[in-house]
């Protein structure tokens, strides 16, 4: 009995017990349903073992939407707690846990997989490839991310959630101040998911460098592919820093080392530095693919080539380099002195230059364009003004002297939400709507979509603008309550109303998916938006081999030029296509990693050793396995192509 006591949540509340029941019931319902409808075999063969980049993309998407729900519930609880002075809805500990999980879930388990979802689905299609460079590693990436996410999400019912903020600063995150296992969950789930992301980064960088269609030189790549390429390069060079930091943090907590302690020479600021050396590039890992999506959408719906292609690429390269040299601006007030602060202040403000170049390029693309306002375009149009407000306040925060006023106040919270929500969230929703017909074969309803977009934009402004004021007035972030005399009440109440509006917008988006699934026409062309790049040149639904014939490219708008200027994309006849086999190994390995992480969280040494050995056994099995894939023969390709509406072009 004593053994099981360590798994009990340390600060139980009725809400946590209700969640436990809900989790058990949902799990039973899912397993029962799969058994009753005899879908286990289908699920295993078609999805769980798949190495197809399109299906992996859709699984990333589903996981991201689930995590969006989780992260948003945390956000609503925070706003509800702060809506009134001296509110008793949550206690301090519970509030600490919720803002921690909100941050981690939204950044690492919602935004990251959402971006990787679209990257997975679109990048190989956009460069005319049949899959990514390492399909099986791609599946492993997904399952590692998923098992990390699940490990993080069970924390609040088994053993307790992390409560030291998403930055997990030491010494707050040490055993002394964060006593239950929550922060161990943080360390190990991020480690596992981060491993998956690193593998993705290597995979996509290789894919984009090596697998482009003939004729597609680097400077003829579509902008989303360019942004994905830069992003994956950042991933390759930023995530190992997180790996090291997390390993050191775990060792401090579990093995009693002295990296970040306050005794025996330990240095807590080392964590802050390492965390942000990864953490700041991470911001650009999120925003650059979003910029890529906006570029595709704006040029599609303005019916013009993207203005300033070369300067777009150059600005992303500059952002990539600068993103590694600004990390200390996250802690100007933590004592590194005026000289260091000045340097980081200048590098920080310098980032506004390439970002501004991009904003103006989008505006010039719109200039004299034949603009149609569809849902993706509406998101892009709403993005530009709101993001600019968020960005400009970022420059304010970047000035180190002035930052002593803003640091750790709600002003900062307003700033980064007003860049991340329009920058990343809007882009993802725009991208989702834009690519929905390619993924699922029908369009999302435009009317409901526009309502949702407007409501989301207005809700974002209403929720976060008041924080500029209360922040300048001195409301600290992460404060779980305040007295009436502070006068923060009214601003927080307005924020709460805005959060509710965002909630309604999300409900509308969910309803839109339901409504469109039921009623939308399935009779759409493979290119419903009249778009410009290669992903629209293949059939909908996309056949497993993507392109029956490898396309020949000679411009950065290959498909548009094929439609308007008679350029021929598909010249050759059919040939046998070599495809990789499915494999159960990735999901099994990720399952073992889950148990591995769980064992370390609770210092259960026997299972920790057994799973470590099992992981190596899996790698050895993979190494010795002989698997040369299979071939799709010409007659099968012909049959499929005929069924899907004939040879394209």
């Amino acid at each position, binding site marked *: 009995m004593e053994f099981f006591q360590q798994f009990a949540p340390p600060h139980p509340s009725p809400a946590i017990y209700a969640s436990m029941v809900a989790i058990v019931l949902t799990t039973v319902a899912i397993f029962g349903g799969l058994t009753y409808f005899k879908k286990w075999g289908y699920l295993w063969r078609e999805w769980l073992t798949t190495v197809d980049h399109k299906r992996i993309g859709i699984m990333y998407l589903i996981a991201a939407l689930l995590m969006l729900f989780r992260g948003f519930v945390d956000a609503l609880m925070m706003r509800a707690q702060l809506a009134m002075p001296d509110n008793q809805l949550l206690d301090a500990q519970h509030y600490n846990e919720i803002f921690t999980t909100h941050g981690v879930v939204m950044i690492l388990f919602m935004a990251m997989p959402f971006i990787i979802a679209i990257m997975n689905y679109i990048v190989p299609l956009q460069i005319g490839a049949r899959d990514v*460079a*390492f399909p099986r590693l791609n599946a492993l990436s997904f399952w590692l991310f998923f098992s990390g996410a699940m490990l993080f999400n069970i924390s609040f019912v088994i053993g307790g959630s992390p409560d030291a903020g998403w930055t997990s600063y030491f010494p707050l995150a040490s055993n002394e101040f964060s006593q239950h296992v929550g922060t161990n969950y943080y360390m190990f789930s991020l480690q596992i998911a981060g491993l998956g992301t*690193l593998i993705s*980064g*290597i*995979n996509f*960088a*290789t894919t984009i*460098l*090596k*697998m482009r269609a003939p004729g597609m030189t680097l400077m003829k790549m579509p902008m989303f592919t360019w942004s994905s390429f830069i992003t994956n390069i950042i991933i*390759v*060079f*930023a*995530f*190992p*820093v997180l*790996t*090291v*930091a997390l*390993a*050191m943090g775990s*060792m401090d907590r579990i*093995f*009693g*080392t*002295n*990296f970040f*302690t306050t*005794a*025996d*020479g*330990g*240095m807590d600021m*080392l964590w802050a530095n*390492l965390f942000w*050396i990864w953490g700041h590039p991470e911001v650009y890992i999120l925003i650059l693919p979003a910029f890529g999506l906006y570029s595709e959408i704006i040029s599609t719906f303005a019916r013009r080539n993207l203005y300033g292609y070369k300067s777009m690429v150059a600005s992303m390269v500059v952002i990539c380099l600068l993103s590694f040299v600004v990390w200390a601006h996250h802690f100007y007030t933590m004592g590194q002195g005026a000289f260091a602060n000045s340097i980081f202040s200048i590098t920080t403000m310098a980032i506004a230059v390439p970002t501004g170049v991009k904003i103006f390029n989008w505006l010039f693309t719109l200039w004299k364009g034949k603009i149609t306002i569809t849902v993706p375009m509406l998101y892009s149009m709403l993005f530009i003004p709101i993001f600019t407000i968020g960005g400009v306040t970022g420059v304010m925060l970047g000035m180190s002297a002035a930052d002593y006023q803003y640091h750790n106040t709600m002003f900062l919270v307003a700033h980064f939400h007003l860049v991340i929500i329009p920058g990343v969230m809007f882009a993802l929703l725009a991208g989702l709507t834009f690519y929905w017909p390619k993924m699922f074969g029908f369009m999302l309803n435009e009317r409901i979509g526009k309502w949702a977009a407007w409501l989301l934009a207005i809700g974002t402004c209403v929720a976060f603008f008041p924080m500029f004021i209360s922040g300048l007035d001195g409301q600290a972030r992460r404060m779980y309550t305040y007295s009436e005399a502070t006068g923060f009440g009214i601003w927080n109440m307005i924020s709460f109303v805005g959060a509710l509006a965002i909630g309604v917008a999300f409900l509308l988006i969910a309803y839109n998916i339901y409504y469109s699934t039921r009623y939308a026409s399935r009779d759409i062309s493979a290119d419903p938006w009249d778009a410009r790049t290669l992903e629209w040149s293949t059939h909908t639904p996309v056949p497993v081999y993507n392109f029956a014939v490898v396309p020949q490219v000679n411009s950065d708008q290959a498909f548009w030029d094929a439609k308007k200027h008679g350029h021929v994309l598909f010249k050759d006849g059919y040939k046998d296509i*070599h495809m990789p086999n499915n494999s159960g190994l990735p999901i099994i390995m990720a399952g073992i990693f889950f148990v591995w992480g769980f064992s370390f969280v609770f210092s259960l040494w026997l299972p920790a050793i057994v799973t470590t050995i099992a992981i*190596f056994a899996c790698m*050895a099995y993979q*190494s*010795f396995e002989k698997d*040369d894939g299979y071939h799709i023969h010409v007659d099968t390709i012909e049959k499929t192509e005929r069924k899907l509406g004939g040879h394209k072009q």
Partner: protein
Amino acid sequence: MKIDQSLPLEYSTEENRIKILGFWIFLGAEITLFATLFASYFTLVNRTGSGPTGAEIFELTPVLIETLLLLTSSFTIGLAIHAMRLGRQKAMLTFFGLTLLLGLGFLSLEIYEFFHYVHVGASIQTSAFTSMLLTTLGTHGAHVAFGLFWGLCIMLQVRRDGFTPHTANKSFIFSLYWHFLDVVWIFIFSFIYLKGMM
């Protein structure tokens, strides 16, 4: 599978070329990993708390032997790849096995070294400096240990299948990994041991 006969076996198919590039990118990530460890080491090197400093615990003899073993093993893995390009399987396996033996020797000495550190009161918990020292050395050592395990798998496959584009590719990639570990060790030797003993 299209095999280009004008290229060495490990580069002969498109799949192989993709794998080699992917591994170079992975090595880029590994460089960042070790760079982070070194940066942290330089930050913490003088923060010895109540524990010993590097000069007090480092022993030159085992470290010199370790260096000698690892540098030699980088030479022998080069010979193994050379033998592979000449198509001489027996010579290749001999040099490959010699490489792993030298690696094993290196690892044994490093394990001895760790026992020595704990014995003289510099365990992983003693101070920020010892935590960082043993973690940096340990990460490199874990890479060598993984290399032994991985290399053994590859040797068995070369014996099973002979030289094919697959096995040649794996052996070549392993040699890249092994040379990389050697480069990291040169940094460890210069900046941790020599600088620490000066």
